[in-house]
């Protein structure tokens, strides 16, 4: 029998919805849905055209070539040479049919964060030199807590050069890494990294993470939707924080359970702690050629860096 309070609910018409201006819950739902969709799409495989130039090259060569170029970028300090490297990387991305929009998304995230980190280096309190722009004049003897401030706070020319160099390096490295990921299947990439010395356990963890991050994201979406379906709205911030903490805990429990099941499924199919992976075909001439081109290009850039 249903309890009395259950059947005694008022049967009046539902009240009209009232606009409260609260959008936080909707934003979380949309963010989770969008994140899940994007992750599933991006992680399904390489984003470059399969017939693109780099798409047909062996993953080992691409990883080796990318490492050579990234190392070269860290040694180059002339801004024009770094800019040239960045332009070259962008041209490669576009030539392989990855799309400028995807690259733009990457550039909006990582390099902007890097810029925020490096901006203080452009100030005279960090990098001394000829002033380019005066920001503030606190006067002689000014303090910020225990820290003594200079009489004028300026952006210096050497400081701007340091920030620009750092940003160009980050952009170049991120673009090269993006090009590698976009033109290589995740399994091939992990296998190549494994062959090039990445510890076996780390490669396995990355494989699992790649496979299950979407499954867990869907679980997070389900938890959020289940909560929404029982929410009456108007919850306090503290209540929402409690709910998020409980959701994280629930997701963690599911993750543990799934991890146990995956391990059992691996054991059941013969995994004995020493993971065997499929051997890939040997390098072809064009694969070796890519590494040679990357080496020659890096050498040319380092030479230009010295001569300019």
């Amino acid at each position: 029998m249903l309890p009395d309070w259950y059947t005694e609910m008022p049967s009046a018409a539902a009240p009209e919805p009232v606009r409260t201006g609260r959008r936080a819950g909707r934003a979380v739902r949309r963010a989770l849905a969008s994140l899940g969709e994007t992750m599933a799409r991006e992680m399904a495989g390489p984003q470059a055209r399969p017939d693109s130039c780099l798409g047909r090259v062996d993953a080992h060569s691409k990883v080796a070539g990318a490492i050579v170029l990234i190392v070269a970028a860290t040694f180059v300090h002339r801004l024009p040479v770094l800019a040239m490297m960045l332009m070259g990387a962008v041209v490669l991305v576009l030539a392989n049919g990855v799309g400028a929009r995807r690259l733009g998304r990457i550039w909006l995230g990582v390099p902007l964060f890097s810029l925020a980190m490096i901006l203080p280096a452009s100030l005279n309190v960090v990098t001394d030199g000829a002033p380019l722009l005066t920001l503030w004049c606190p006067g002689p003897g000014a303090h910020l807590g225990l820290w003594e401030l200079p009489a004028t706070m300026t952006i210096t020319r050497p400081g701007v050069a340091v920030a620009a160099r750092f940003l160009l390096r980050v952009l170049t490295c991120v673009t090269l890494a993006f090009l590698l990921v976009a033109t290589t299947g995740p399994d091939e990439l992990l296998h190549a990294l494994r062959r090039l010395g990445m510890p076996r356990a780390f490669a396995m963890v990355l494989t699992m993470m790649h496979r299950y991050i979407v499954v867990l994201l869907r679980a997070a979406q389900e938890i959020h939707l289940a909560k929404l379906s029982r929410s009456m709205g108007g919850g306090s911030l503290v209540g929402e924080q409690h709910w998020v903490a409980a959701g994280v805990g629930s997701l963690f429990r599911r993750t543990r359970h799934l991890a146990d099941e995956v391990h059992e499924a691996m054991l059941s199919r013969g995994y004995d702690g020493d993971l065997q992976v499929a051997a890939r075909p040997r390098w072809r001439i064009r694969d070796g050629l890519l590494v040679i081109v990357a080496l020659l290009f890096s050498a040319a850039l380092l030479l230009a860096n010295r001569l300019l």
Partner: protein
Amino acid sequence: MRANLLSEIIFDLNHVDYRYPGGAVALRDITFSAAAGERLAIIGANGSGKSTLLHLLDGLYFADSGTVDAFGVTLTETAVETPPFAREFRRRVGFLFQNSDAQLFCARVDEELAFGPLQLRLSREEIERRVADVLRFVGIEHLRERSPQQLSEGEKKKVALASILTCGPRVLLLDEPSAGLDPRTQDWLVEFLGALHDAGITLVEASHDLNFVADTADRALVLSEDHRLVRDAPVTQVLSDCDLLASVNLIRPKPRARV
């Protein structure tokens, strides 16, 4: 051929007790044997210990007391971790998990099928041959290069089954194989398991789907809600015993109470 197979005992359990790590009882005093070529169903209500029993048969859990013998060897942690028995046991026994997502952990379907043979250290040519044969046998050649994320539940179940078959197991342990499948895929699974049985494969399934059990098993082990084995008899006999099925919460003892 079937008569010869049935004389070979594959699993032999004697007074097996098992408790979960938290201390809750999962199985009490379980004793039975399974012969090669049998179609065996372990039936019981939710939480009766069906899946746990399959885990014990696959050497993933180990009995707290009593013994679980497989192919004449007692399954202990040492036995299932020590070659050559460990490798041979894993080659002979395949386990289809209820949650296909847990079983499909590789990036692509063909890699999933190659995982087991790779761990068994088979040659590359042999692995490629097995993967191609099983893809064709299960009828999933078109899924070969897909990611598990892009598969429907029915397709995931087929790929999970194929990923076991590439190891060439003689025994299949199936945990709720029909759960979450649409009617067409269920029909396919019934026919597919029938074909495997005709080929001499031993099938041990855990299920509470009595229609599915009627189509895919010859013998039933009934687990009660207090985790005991209360009946070991032919499926037709068990499924016609309404009092037994009601007592173990597999069918309703009387019409559903109206709200």
